[in-house]
């Protein structure tokens, strides 16, 4: 990890810095060298290569940063766009001045270099040079004449006198060196007044050709660091084949020497500069361009660093803001600096803490609200009363399960809908929705009303109460199903009536019957025939009516029986067979059985169960009457009640007849005492069956058959324990 860190540091920081340094040094060195100083000419290629590599490095570093910025922009990294804007601003701020300075520097350089080459100065220098040449030529002519004169003199000089003649001549002519070359080029004699020129200069081929062609050679020649006048003339009188050559070197006067050197140098410097003008401009332009590139790249690189440094805290702040927005309050914030950004960070931290506290409070409150709501929902779900909640616009907001059960609709599917809309879909509930809508519109604080509503489960008596919620929050309607309550109350009343009848009416009946029979025995046959007939009819009527009264009182007694049933496991099919066998031999009745397979067991009081079956058969026979032969079908079947939460099994005992069917408006009240459509009967048969069913945890229902007639179905719970195969009692 440490090595990777070092590598990263070297690549991102050290290398660009080294590249900038190398470029800077290269520019300085090139500028110094171009100005005439330095001594780096032999390293130019290395310097330029290093500069090129540095430029490439900087370009790569910038490209890498640009690429990273692009990735961050595409990723939507916090602060990336701000960083880009800041980078652009910094570059736009820094680069134009650099470019402007570059342009001005180039222009200034161009103008300055051009100004060096003044036309008048050049002309003056050319004139001075020409004057120098004229002076030198004048001196050259003089030297030439002197040399010719000496050569003429040497023509008559014997060979052994030549050296002496030269020695005399050099003093006379003021020459630096005099040499006589033989026809074969050898030095015949030579003399020198300056020890630096003891070795005679040998004429080259060009010089010899000039002498042969022009008869002489005269030129000012730079010899060493000194300009000398060199004159060569043939020695007169010699035959051409062996013509000797006199060569003389004449110095210019010291003053003239200095002046001519000065003129030559000045003119030459000017010419040199004039020649170098283009190269100088090019060199400085290249160096300035180097400096420009260096500046731009350095500024760009620095802009990246500055932008990153400035934006980093903002980026972390943005990331923290996003985290806080997402509910993560533990995101670390950047270290607060001692400036406006630090103030912002501190303010943000304080705001985050406050939001965190507020959020915690809100969350706690939400949890509490949710708990309360769940509690309320649970409460509403367990209420036996139906509850409907409406908003101020009268739209349904809440309905509990009891409301759905009582009204027989899926009320939750109507959430958000008005009562008018509910009524449109469930027209049978108009008796409920219309009064309710009226009360909601009425704006009363509280109200109550008893309603009779035809629901899917039959006609129900509902006690509807309503109240407006505080702060116009809406309305709540609560309704109880009074149907069962009323029935229970009536059952209790009828039970009381039955008990009183059984107790108060049954007791006098036996003495009445006995008294009537005694009167019949005492007076029948002892009085006249007419009176006997009267006594017979009267006593017969009394006895029969007392019997009828006893039957009715017994029925009431059965209905009001105070003893609880004795429940034991009963094999229902076997019990049914026992009872139905009693009717089997009656030719007036057509009886068939359709009993469930197996032997369903019920926990029941066998006596009362027999009575219930008898009552159902009797009820069927009475309903059929004498119009046609009764056809009864007694059947059992096993059913499972899916409506209840616990999965329980029931056995249904059905007695079907071929009678006229149920009367119109048949309902629950037909199972109440003294409700009958028949001329005969006490009106207690079905009430007793219902009571027996309820004593056994079951129920009774009636419906018309498709093929005609009615069917009464007694439902009893199957005894789960005993059905596993324990002892079974039939009777």
């Amino acid at each position, binding site marked *: 990890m440490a090595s990777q860190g070092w590598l990263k540091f070297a690549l991102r920081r050290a290398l660009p810095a080294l590249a900038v340094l190398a470029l800077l040094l290269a520019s300085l060195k*090139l500028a110094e*060298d*171009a*100005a*005439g*100083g*330095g*001594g780096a*000419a*032999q390293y*130019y*290629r290395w310097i*330029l290569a290093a500069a090129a590599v540095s430029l490439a490095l900087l370009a790569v570093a910038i490209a890498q940063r640009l690429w990273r910025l692009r990735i961050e922009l595409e990723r939507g990294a916090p602060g990336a766009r701000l960083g880009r804007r800041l980078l652009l601003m910094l570059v736009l701020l820094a680069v134009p001045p650099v470019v402007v300075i570059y342009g001005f520097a180039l222009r200034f350089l161009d103008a300055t270099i051009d100004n060096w080459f003044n036309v008048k100065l050049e002309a003056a220098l050319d004139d001075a*040079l020409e004057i*120098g*040449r004229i002076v*030198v030529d004048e001196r050259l002519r003089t030297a030439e004449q002197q040399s010719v004169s000496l050569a003429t003199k040497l023509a008559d000089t014997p060979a052994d006198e030549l050296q002496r003649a030269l020695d005399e001549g050099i003093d006379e002519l003021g020459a630096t060196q005099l040499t006589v070359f033989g026809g074969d080029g050898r030095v015949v004699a030579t003399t020198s007044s300056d020890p630096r020129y003891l070795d005679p200069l040998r004429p*080259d081929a*060009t010089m010899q050709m000039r002498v042969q062609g022009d008869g002489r050679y005269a*030129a*000012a*020649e*730079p*010899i*060493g660091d000194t*300009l000398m006048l060199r004159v060569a003339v043939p020695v007169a009188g010699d035959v051409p084949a062996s013509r000797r050559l006199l060569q003389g070197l004449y110095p210019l006067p010291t003053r003239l020497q200095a002046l*001519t050197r000065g*003129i*030559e140098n000045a*003119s*030459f*410097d000017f*010419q*040199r500069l*004039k*020649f*170098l003008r283009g*190269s*100088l401009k*090019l*060199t400085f332009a*290249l*160096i300035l361009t180097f400096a420009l590139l260096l500046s731009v790249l350095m500024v760009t690189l620095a802009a990246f660093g500055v932008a990153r440094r400035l934006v980093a805290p903002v980026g972390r702040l943005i990331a923290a803001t996003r985290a806080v927005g997402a509910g993560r309050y533990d995101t670390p914030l950047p270290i607060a600096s001692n400036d406006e950004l630090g103030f912002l960070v501190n303010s943000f931290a304080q705001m985050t803490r406050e939001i965190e506290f507020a959020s915690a409070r809100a969350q706690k409150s939400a949890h509490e609200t949710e708990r309360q709501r769940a509690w309320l929902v649970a409460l509403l779900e367990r209420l036996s009363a139906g509850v409907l909640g409406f908003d101020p616009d009268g739209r349904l907001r809440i309905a509990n399960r009891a409301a759905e059960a009582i009204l027989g609709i899926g009320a939750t599917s109507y959430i958000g809908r008005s009562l008018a809309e509910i009524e449109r879909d469930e027209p049978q509930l108009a008796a409920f929705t219309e009064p309710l809508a009226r009360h909601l519109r009425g704006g009363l604080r509280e109200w109550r009303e008893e309603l009779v509503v035809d629901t899917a489960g039959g006609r129900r008596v509902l006690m509807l109460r309503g109240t407006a919620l505080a702060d116009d929050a809406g309305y709540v309607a609560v309704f109880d199903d009074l149907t069962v309550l009323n029935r229970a109350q009536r059952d209790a009343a009828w039970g009381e009536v039955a008990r009183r009848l059984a107790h108060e009416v049954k007791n006098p009946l036996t003495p009445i019957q006995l008294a009537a029979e005694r009167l019949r025995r005492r007076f029948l046959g002892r009085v006249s025939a007419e009176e006997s007939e009267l006594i017979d009819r009267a006593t017969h009527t009394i006895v029969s009516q007392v019997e009828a009264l006893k039957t009715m009182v017994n029925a009431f007694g059965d209905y009001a029986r105070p003893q609880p049933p004795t429940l034991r496991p009963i094999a229902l099919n076997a019990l049914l067979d026992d009872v139905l066998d009693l009717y089997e031999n009656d030719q007036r009745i057509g009886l068939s059985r359709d009993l469930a397979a197996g032997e369903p067991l019920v926990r029941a009081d066998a006596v009362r169960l027999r009575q219930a079956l008898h009552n159902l058969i009797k009820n069927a026979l009475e309903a059929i009457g004498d119009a046609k032969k009764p056809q009864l079908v007694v059947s059992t079947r096993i059913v499972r009640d899916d409506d209840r939460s616990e999965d329980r099994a029931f056995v249904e005992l059905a007695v079907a007849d071929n009678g006229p069917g149920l009367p119109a408006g048949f309902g629950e009240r037909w199972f109440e005492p003294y409700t009958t459509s028949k001329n005969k009967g006490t009106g207690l048969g079905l009430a007793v069956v219902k009571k027996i069913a309820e004593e056994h945890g079951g129920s009774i229902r009636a419906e018309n058959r498709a093929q005609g007639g009615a069917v009464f179905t007694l439902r009893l719970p199957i005894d789960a324990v005993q059905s596993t195969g324990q002892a079974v009692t039939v009777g």
Partner: protein
Amino acid sequence: MRSSKRPASTVARALVALVLACAVAGCGALAAQQPGTLVIRNARVAGTIDAPMLEIGIDCKLSGPMQDALDHGIPLTFRIRVDASRWRLLPSDARAEHRIELRYFPLSRRYQVRDLDAPVDVRSFATPGNLLASLNAMRLPLPPAFATLSRGAPVRIGVELETASLPGALRLPAVFEPAWQLSSTEYTWLAKAG
């Protein structure tokens, strides 16, 4: 997004094209300049009483800018490297270097050639042709080690224009401009017994 990127990429392409065009034009302009030539015709190490001498003949043709520079008083220096060492990278006494300077004097209108390492040998000429012709036959002193070269030892010699001796303003262009790049191919021969 595409529409916002297109102008940027177009500008970038245009810039690249401009740079390439400038580079091509620059290369073309540089290639258009006629370079000079520098060829070593012959060379040998000759023994003398004083010291071994290098006798070398060089055919030199200056480029236009070089000739122009010479006529404007800018000295041109040629570096002659002689190497008779067995191993090039190891130090050896059998190596020598001479710097020959060509120069023009406007007052006397003379071209001068001189060995900067042997200042005594100075010659001047009236024309540049004569000046360059003088390079056809030069005698340059060598270190004593060249006098004892074993027979068959390879002697390598190379000549080049010394750009470092040019005026500062010319050095940078001389790196890029072919007209200022003048060097001979290496000339090699086998030494005779010293």
